[in-house]
């Protein structure tokens, strides 16, 4: 009973915050509502017996990714920038309609494929952290290594993209401080 009530509160706030993310005009407000949405999602994850993923969600999203977003917004000082974005016109309304149709489509698909199914198995309880680690290093070993390679590539790529042109950077004696 309590779980259900918490679910409804969390998902309501989550959807509201998501709507605010895509509609508010100031990028800082967008980023903060996205943080709220992600925090509520972490709550939903915890309800689905995925506490570790929920904690990681807070650590990675709220602690790192969204801080980076805020950092970039402030660094570029974009607060008045957004005022230039046009108001809602016909084309954008049509795009919104398409999205709505897509949403209905998606929901119908889920409804048809899942129907009234309920949880068949008990939730993986205590010790699931160890089980996740074991899966990561046995069955998903290759994917794990590929992901670490991807992260390295991303770091190199970011340094390359943000560096201020090769000549000036080399002349200044430092290669792209990101």
């Amino acid at each position, binding site marked *: 009973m309590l779980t259900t009530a918490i679910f409804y509160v969390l998902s309501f706030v989550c959807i509201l915050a998501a709507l605010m993310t895509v509609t508010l005009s100031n990028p*800082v407000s967008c980023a*903060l509502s996205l*943080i709220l949405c992600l925090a509520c999602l972490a709550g939903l994850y915890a309800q689905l017996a995925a*506490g*570790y993923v929920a*904690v*990681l969600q*807070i*650590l990675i999203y*709220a*602690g*790192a990714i*969204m*801080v*980076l977003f*805020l*950092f970039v917004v*402030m*660094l570029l000082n974009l607060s008045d920038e957004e005022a230039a974005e046009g108001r809602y016109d016909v084309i954008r309304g049509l795009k919104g309609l398409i999205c709505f149709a897509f949403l209905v489509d998606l929901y119908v698909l889920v409804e048809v494929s899942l129907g009234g199914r309920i949880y068949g198995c008990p939730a993986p309880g*205590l*010790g*699931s*952290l160890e089980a996740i680690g074991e899966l990561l290093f046995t069955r998903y070993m290759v994917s794990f290594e590929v992901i670490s390679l991807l992260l390295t590539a991303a770091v190199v790529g970011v340094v390359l993209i943000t560096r201020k042109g090769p000549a000036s950077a080399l002349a200044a004696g430092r290669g792209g*401080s990101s």
Partner: protein
Amino acid sequence: MNIEYIAGIIKAVTIPVMALNSIPLLVWMERRGSAFIQNRHGPNRANIGPITLFGLLHPFADAIKCVFKEPFRPTKAHPIFYPLAPALVVVPALLTLAVVPLADHIFLMGAEIPMSVAELEYGIVYMFAVSSISVLGITLAGWASNNKFSLMGGLRSTAQMISYELSLGLSIFGALLVYGSLNPNEIARLQGETFFGVIPAWGVLMQPLGFLLFLIAAFAEANRNPFDLPEGESELVAGYHTEYGGMKFSMFMMGEYVAMVTLSALTVTLFFGGWQVPWVTTEALQATVGQPLRVLCQFLAFAGKTLFFCWLFIWVRWTLPRFRYDQLMRLGWKVILPLSIVNVFVTALVLLGLGWMKGTL
């Protein structure tokens, strides 16, 4: 109603209250300590008649002043985010304490109750996750004040905290590999043994480099001197909290001091045996003095160690000068981060070697 629920509620109320009550004590320690270190008079004016209590009344005077000041918002500050920012600093700092064990489990009416608000299998990850939210508060304070000094402070602290959070996380990897657990209580329990029967097997002896790196990163993470560039008063007035006053300002201060307590508690749990009374295991202690006294002893051991590290924070603050910004970044990315990675590698290799030796023997 279940005994575990009641205990949970009691703990959830007591532990934050304890943390908040430690703030006046720490403020007093900071003032007396700074006066002592710099050879000058400390706070000695606040009094009730002839009683001054070595300056202990000053924190109360400060609290009264902050509470009764007029709440003030600059006209150009953001109406929602400006008041939200201080709360975003205090609340995560308090939430982090939820998984710190104050003593070993107690047995009460047939139930085993952990002496932390919640005992999580991945408590250490939880601590890092929640404490990383406080960066948001500082960044937001810098932006919402609509003041260039605040913005500079906010930007600096964002870059600094992201950089050092990485080192903070990586520096404890070695210790976590040694313990093989992410549960703070489990980690504290594993440090109860002794080497050669005389030296307590604390993490600092197994991971000296990891401890040093962790301590440096913790100073940077708490925005304390020598890394207090976000609020460097000689360059940025007061950094991200330039525009804050009264209770909102004191909330930033509360956040800073609670973060200090939290980081000290984490240091103690990871590297100095947590609630372990040296040379005495929980069972032996309980057999001698009984359960209530055992818990008290362990709590006092934990509190003493934590207070020592709080004092270390203060000591360093009033001894070392502030870093320059590029020095700070260089130290973080070019010294501490590579050293932590080396530490992880060496620890893993040693553990692997030990495992092989055990396997062949």
